[in-house]
């Protein structure tokens, strides 16, 4: 009997303890259709039974830009680095919201999907990945808004404010990838910890909003430097990304090898830990959630 067992090759061995960094990429690849169906589900269910449908994706950045232009641009008089205020904020908002949506949505992935996860197995990483991808759809729509606005200001320029598209645009795919992975990594860490200790959920809900003020969404890096807080702002790995973004699209901002590699390093480290902790938690979280 024993001999038979040894000679058999099992497709799957389910046991309690597994290696620390053990992602079954083959499994993940086999479930790729599920990822896209989740994306489709998110997208379709978002605008079902609404009149404006996908146009709602425009509403949030438009209103935020209007308010920011009024409050920070007009009332507080914070400089926009010589760019049209609307474009300045819109670039920041679009990229920041992509990051923060990835973060906040993945940070509740275990809690929100406890029901599905408790009933059926599929590689758990599919769920946060689908969140990142479906936010990407949203991001693309918002990017369209940015391009429309840029065209508008190109044909009807405002006096004293100008912008230009630069070769930094080649970095665009990398920037998106960085934002997605940074949001994903942080989200994974938070969701793993909150399966047992819910405290962190409260922190995330307002913490992410406050975090926006620690990076260059509403002020340029040069302005922060002027006031002597440049180093602090640069600590936020999103700063390098947003600055590069602004440089690519509008020609103002800071894109240096140092700032980008700092963001890349931080992203890799956070993502690495995120995946380890998520992997560790996914096996048994159903018992504690």
């Amino acid at each position, binding site marked *: 009997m024993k001999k038979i067992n040894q000679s058999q090759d099992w497709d799957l061995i389910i046991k309690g303890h597994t290696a620390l960094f053990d992602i079954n990429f083959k499994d993940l690849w086999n479930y790729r259709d599920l990822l896209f169906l989740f994306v489709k589900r998110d997208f379709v269910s978002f605008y079902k039974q609404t009149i404006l449908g996908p146009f709602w994706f425009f509403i949030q950045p438009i209103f935020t830009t209007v308010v920011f232009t009024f409050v920070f641009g007009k009332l507080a008089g914070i400089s926009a680095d010589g760019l049209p205020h609307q474009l300045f904020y819109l670039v920041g908002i679009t990229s920041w919201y992509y990051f923060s949506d990835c973060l906040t949505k993945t940070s509740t992935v275990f809690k929100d999907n406890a029901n599905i996860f408790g009933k059926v*197995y599929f590689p758990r990483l599919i769920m946060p990945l689908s969140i990142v991808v479906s936010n990407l759809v949203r991001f693309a729509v918002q990017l369209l808004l940015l391009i429309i606005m840029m065209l508008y200001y190109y044909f009807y320029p405002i006096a004293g404010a100008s912008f230009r598209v630069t070769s930094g645009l080649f970095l665009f795919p990398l920037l998106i990838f960085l934002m997605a992975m940074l949001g994903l990594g942080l989200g994974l860490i938070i969701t793993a910890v909150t399966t*047992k200790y819910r405290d962190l959920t409260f922190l995330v809900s307002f913490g992410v909003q406050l975090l926006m003020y620690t990076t260059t969404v509403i002020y340029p890096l040069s302005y922060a430097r002027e006031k002597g807080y440049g180093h602090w702002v640069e600590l936020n790995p999103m700063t390098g990304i947003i600055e590069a973004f602004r440089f690519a699209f509008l020609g103002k901002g800071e894109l240096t090898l140092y700032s980008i590699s700092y963001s890349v390093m931080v992203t890799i480290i956070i993502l690495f830990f995120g995946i380890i902790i998520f992997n560790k938690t996914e096996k048994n979280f159903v018992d504690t959630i």
Partner: protein
Amino acid sequence: MSKPIIQVENLSKAYQIGQIGTGTISRDIERFWLTKIRGKEDPFLKIGQINDRSVKADSDIVWSLKDVNFNINQGDAIGVIGKNGAGKSTLLKLLSRVTSPTTGEIKVKGRIASLLEVGTGFHPELSGRENIYLNGAILGMRKNEISRKLDEIIDFSGVERYIDTPVKRYSSGMYVRLAFAVAAHLESEILIVDEVLAVGDAEFQKKCLGKMGDISKGQGRTVIFVSHNMAAVQSLCNNGLVLNNGIVQYEGPIAGAVNKYLNQFTQDLRTVQYKPENAPGNDFAKFIYGKIVSQNKSIDDVITEGDAIEIEFEFLILEDGIHQLGITFHLYDELGVFVFVGSSCDEFREVKRGIYKERVVIPANLMPEGTFTITKLLLVKNRGSLVCAINSPFSFEIMPKTDENFGWKGAKEGAVKPKLDWQIIK
């Protein structure tokens, strides 16, 4: 001998019961320190005990499964049966990788598809068709696989007319039909089905069971089926696994498994025996022994619907003299319905000091399946005065008939189920 397709070795699963609160974090840290840093055995798992929910535990770790070993061969249809809390669901969760074992391992050959719930991941806003794709993918199907089977799935579900309507507008029956249809068309080597047949009407249940029979018998795939419905288990499965408090109690042919399972309920409650010192009663008489069996059968046999039931009472009469005595008992069912009162007071017996034993038979075909309790056992003296009353001495369970294959599977209807004499007149 066919080869094992699933091999389970020393499988255990511990659960923490009670609140997860502030005490947990300090314990987690202690645990992390001992097991990960110093490499010792987890101290909190040692104090775990077997899972008996009726007994108050001294530790908040329970073993929902403990050292379970078994093999399943290809093409088998295994019925996993056991009382509530026996560890069935835990076993299924481990097999379907929803949670992982505390110790031990499961080796599997081939793809596992598990159906612990129908319609997992259905999105109410999406149409039936979109949900077929989504649900199919969640269960592990590729998109082109689903497209190929789409017509078959829609046909099986019988909701073709509503297939492009959001499922939130479906009736619960349609919802379940669609969900089961998707699962039934999975092409995995192993199919795990939890008690999903409890929903849906009789026709649909029959269709589901038929489909599952096809899967195991016709296509030679392996089915693991959990149910409390013994008729369904017996008709579908060839082998059974009986779990009790997280331990495998029986593994073998299904008929033996069903018998073993049904016996778990009955034996302990169907006989009572007391020593005279602590027997219930008073100075006049004490109740020392009682037994409920199916007529002409032993205590090891199950009482099945339709059987005549025999009850024995034994009293110890403590007062001297000759007494005119009668016995009365009240019978209630599990819903608290007073079914009937049985009384021997039409004919009083002359009883002397010492042992007084009486037997009564409840005629065949009187009561339906269910749990029945004798709530009041009274000893009546000399046409009217109560001399001894015992509350709820014992209860018994009547099991459903297992040979009626697909009858009514819903809640029981009525406190009695007499066999009526029907005659056609015209």
